[in-house]
C-alpha cells in the first residue's frame, strides 16, 4: 500500500503540490486525473522517489520512498517521455535494467516479445514514438516490480495496442497484485482502466474515490409533476445543477440514488428518469461544486 500524507512540494515560490493525501491500495489500478500543469507529474515523481517531499511524506508499506534503494527496487516509473540510452538496442536496455532490478524476469521479457512483436536488436532511437512507448512498457513489465508508475502511458498508442497493453496490465494485477499508478488528462482513457481515481487540480486533490462509488454517488434525475416541484425535494436533495424546461425538471444530485428516487416517487411524478453520468460529467460538476471553472480543468 502506498500512502501519501500532507504532501507539499514547491518549485521556488511556486506551490506545485498542496497538502496531498492519497491511499493507494495494493493491487489497484489508481488513476490520477488532471489538466496539464495540475501537478500530476510532480506527484508521480514524488511517489517514485525522484523528488523529496518538502513537507509530509510518500511511503510504501510505511517506508519513505525518497533515496530508499530497498523500496525503490520494488517500483518502476515510466516517464511521459521515456528515456533510453542513446544507441542502445531494446536488448541492451533490458540488460541494463536487469542489472539493477533483481525482480527482472527473462521469461516475462520473452513472453512480451511475442506480444509487441518488435525486433529486440533494433536501436530504440530508430523506433517511432508509439513503438518507443511500447518498448518501455515491455521493459517495465519485464521488471516484475510490485508497483508500476505510468505517466500518461497510453498516449501515442493505437487502439489495438492500447487494449493489448491494458490486457497485459490487468493480467499482472490479477496474477500478482501489481499496483499501477497511472496519470492522464484523458478521462475516457482512465474510465475503463482504473478502479480508483484521484482528481487533481492546481496542486490539490479535489476528489479521491473508488471509481464506481464516484459514479454511483452522482446522477442526473429528470422528472415532471403535474403541479409544482415540491419544496421538500429542493430542501432534502443535494442538488449540484438545476434546469427547468417546460414541465420537465432536471437535477444533478449528489448522494444515495435509491433515497432520491423514493423521495420523488412519494410525490407521484408523471415522469421520472434517473440517468447515470459519464465520468466526464461527474468531473465537471464535482469541480463546479469545489468552486472551479470547468474550462480550466477540462481538457
Amino acid at each position, binding site marked *: 500500500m502506498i500512502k501519501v500524507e500532507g504532501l507539499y*512540494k514547491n*518549485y521556488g515560490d511556486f506551490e506545485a503540490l498542496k497538502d496531498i493525501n492519497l491511499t493507494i491500495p495494493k493491487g489497484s489500478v489508481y488513476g490520477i486525473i488532471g489538466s496539464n500543469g495540475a501537478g500530476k507529474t*510532480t506527484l508521480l*515523481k514524488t511517489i*517514485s*522517489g*525522484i*523528488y*523529496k517531499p518538502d513537507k509530509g511524506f510518500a511511503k510504501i508499506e510505511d517506508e519513505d520512498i525518497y*533515496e530508499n*534503494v*530497498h*523500496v*525503490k*527496487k520494488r517500483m*518502476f*516509473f515510466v*516517464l511521459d*517521455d521515456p*528515456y533510453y*540510452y*542513446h*544507441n542502445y538496442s531494446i536488448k541492451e536496455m533490458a540488460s*541494463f535494467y536487469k*542489472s*539493477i*532490478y533483481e525482480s527482472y524476469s527473462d521469461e516475462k521479457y520473452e513472453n512480451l516479445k511475442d506480444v509487441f512483436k518488435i525486433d529486440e536488436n533494433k536501436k530504440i532511437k530508430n523506433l517511432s514514438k508509439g513503438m518507443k512507448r511500447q518498448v518501455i512498457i515491455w521493459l517495465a513489465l519485464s521488471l516484475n516490480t510490485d508497483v508500476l508508475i505510468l505517466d500518461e502511458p497510453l498516449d501515442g498508442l493505437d487502439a489495438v495496442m492500447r487494449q493489448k497493453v491494458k490486457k497485459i496490465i490487468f493480467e499482472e494485477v490479477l496474477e500478482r497484485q501489481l499496483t499501477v499508478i497511472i496519470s492522464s488528462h484523458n478521462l475516457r482513457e482512465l474510465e475503463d482502466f482504473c478502479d480508483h481515481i484521484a482528481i487533481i487540480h492546481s496542486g490539490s486533490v479535489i476528489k479521491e474515490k473508488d471509481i464506481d462509488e464516484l459514479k454511483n454517488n452522482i446522477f442526473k434525475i429528470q422528472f415532471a409533476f403535474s403541479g409544482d416541484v415540491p419544496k421538500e425535494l429542493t430542501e432534502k436533495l443535494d442538488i449540484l445543477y438545476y434546469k427547468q424546461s417546460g414541465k420537465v425538471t432536471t437535477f444533478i444530485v449528489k448522494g444515495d440514488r435509491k433515497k432520491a428516487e423514493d423521495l420523488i416517487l412519494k410525490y407521484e411524478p408523471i415522469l421520472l428518469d434517473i440517468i447515470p453520468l459519464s465520468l466526464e460529467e461527474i468531473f465537471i460538476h464535482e469541480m463546479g461544486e469545489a468552486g472551479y471553472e470547468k474550462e480550466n480543468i477540462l481538457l
Partner: protein
Amino acid sequence: MRKKTYCFNPILLNDLKRFWILSAFYSFILFLLVPLKLLNLISEHVNIGELINSNNFIFTYEGFMGLQPLIIFLIAIFIAVALFYEIQNCKSNDHIHSLPISKKDIFINKVLAGEILIFIPCFINYIITEIIVLQGTIPVHHYKIINYFIMTFINTNILFLQGVFFAVVTTNVFLHVFVSFAINLVPFFIVEMGNDLLNIILPERLSESISLYNLKYILPLSYMIEGRGVDTITIKNIILYILSMALLFLLSYILFIKRKNEDINKTITFNFLNDVFKYTTTFISMIIFSLILSGYFKIGVTFTVINCIIGSFLGYYISEMIIRKELYVFNRLKGYFIYLGIAVVFLILLLNTDLIYKHTPPRAEEVKEVYISTQYNEDKINSSYLIKDKNTIKNIISLQKYLIGFKNNRGWENQVYIVYKLNNGDMIKRYYRGNFGNEFITQMEEISKNIQYKKLNYDILNIDFSDIECIDLNYGKDVYEVTDKEKIRKIYDIVCDGFMNNKFNNLGNNYNTFVNFKIKNDALKKYNKKYGDIRIYVNINLDEDTINNLIKK
C-alpha cells in the same frame, strides 16, 4: 536485518560500455604523442645530442603545435560531459533517480568510470613507452617516463574533476564546457587584465607581477599552456595534487547530494552560485570591455570609467539572461546597481584617498631605502645597492611631489621609476612619465651626485677591473673591439672617473660613445649570475683626443 544492497556495478559498467571509445581515443592521442615519436627517433637513427633534445621535446606538453594542453583539457571535459550529462538533462536525470540507486552510488560510480577511462590510456602508453625504451638504444631516464604519465594522469584527472563539479552545478552543456575552461584562465586573466585596467586609471602605478602558479594544483591548465609543461613529482607536489583532487571530489559530491532533482530545469542549480556566476561575469565583462575600448581609442580615465559601466552592465544583463532563460530581464537589475554602487565607492576611494592606493609620497623617516632610476630593473630593487642616504631620500621625496603636480602631463620626454622600501616592510612603486622640464633635470642631477645612486645606476662601478674580458667601443659609425689590458684599464678608468666626478650621467642625451663591457665567464659566480654572460652597456661623452688615443695602436 535488511540486506544492504550496493549498486556498484550497473552504473559503472553501463558508463564504461557507453563511453569506452573516449578512452580509446585518448589512448590513441597519447600514443601519437609519446611512443610513436620514440619509434620514429629509433628508425631515423638520430645522434645522441638530437636524441636528448627530442627527449625533452617528447616529455613536455608541446605536442600538436603547442595545443596539447588544450587537447588534454578537451578530452577530460568530454569525459566529464559524457558521463555526467545524464544528471544534467531533465529526462535522463529523472530516469536515473527513479531507479533504485542512491545518489551516492550514482556519483561515485560515475567518477570511478571517469577515473578508469583516464587511467587506462596513461597506463597503456606508459607500458608501451617502457617497452620501447627497454628494447631500444634510447637513453631515457625511467623517472622521466613515469613522471610524464603520472602527471598527465593527474592533470587530466583534475580537469575531469573540475568538469564534474560544473556538471553538478550547471545544467547547460555549453555553459558547462565554457565555465570549466574559463575557470582555469579566469584568475590569471583577472590579475593580468585587472592590472592593465588599474594602470589606465592610475598611470603612475607600477604594476607588480603576481605569481599565481601555486594555483596549478587546482587549475593546471594555464600552467600547462604557459609552456611550463609537466610538473616534476615531489612529495610536496603529490600531496598537494591529491589534496586538490580530494577537495574537488568532495565539493562536487556534497553539492550533488544536496542538489534537488527538481532544480534540474534551472541553468545553475544552486542559487548562491547564480550570484557568483553573475558578478564574476559582470566583473570580467567590465574589464574586457573597458580595456578593449580604451586600448583602441587610447583615452583617459573618464572614458574608461564610462566603458566600465557599459561593460559591467552587458556582463550583468547577459548572465541574468542565461540564469533566467529570458530575453527581457530589465526588472532584475537591482544587483547591478548594487555592484555599480560598490564600484563607484571603490573608484572614489582609489582616486582620492590613500586608503587603497597611496597617492602622496611617504615621509622621509618612514623610508628605509629607495630605488630610483630612469630604467626599471626588477633585480636591482631586490639588490643591496639601494639608496639609504637620508638627505638623498628627502630629495627624492621632494622630486616625487614635484612630479605629482604633472598629473595631466603625458609626454614621453622624461621618465623615472621610484620604489620606496618602507621600514614596516611595505613597498611603494611608482612610474612617472611626461615632459617635466628643466626643474626635473636639476633635481635629478642633484640626486645623481649621491654615491649610492651611482652604484645603483652604473653597474660598471660595481665590477672589478680584472674581471673585464673585452670592450666594444662604438664611436660614430665605427665599432672597435678592445682586448688589450692596458687599454681596457684606460677606458675603465675614464668611465668610472666620469661617473664618480659627475662628468657623465644617465639623464641627458648628450653622449657620443657607446661602451660595451664583457665580463669574463669565470667571474659570473661572483656577481650572482648562474648562466649566460654579463655585458654592461654605458653611454658616455668623449672628446676626440681621448678616442684617438684609445683606438690607435
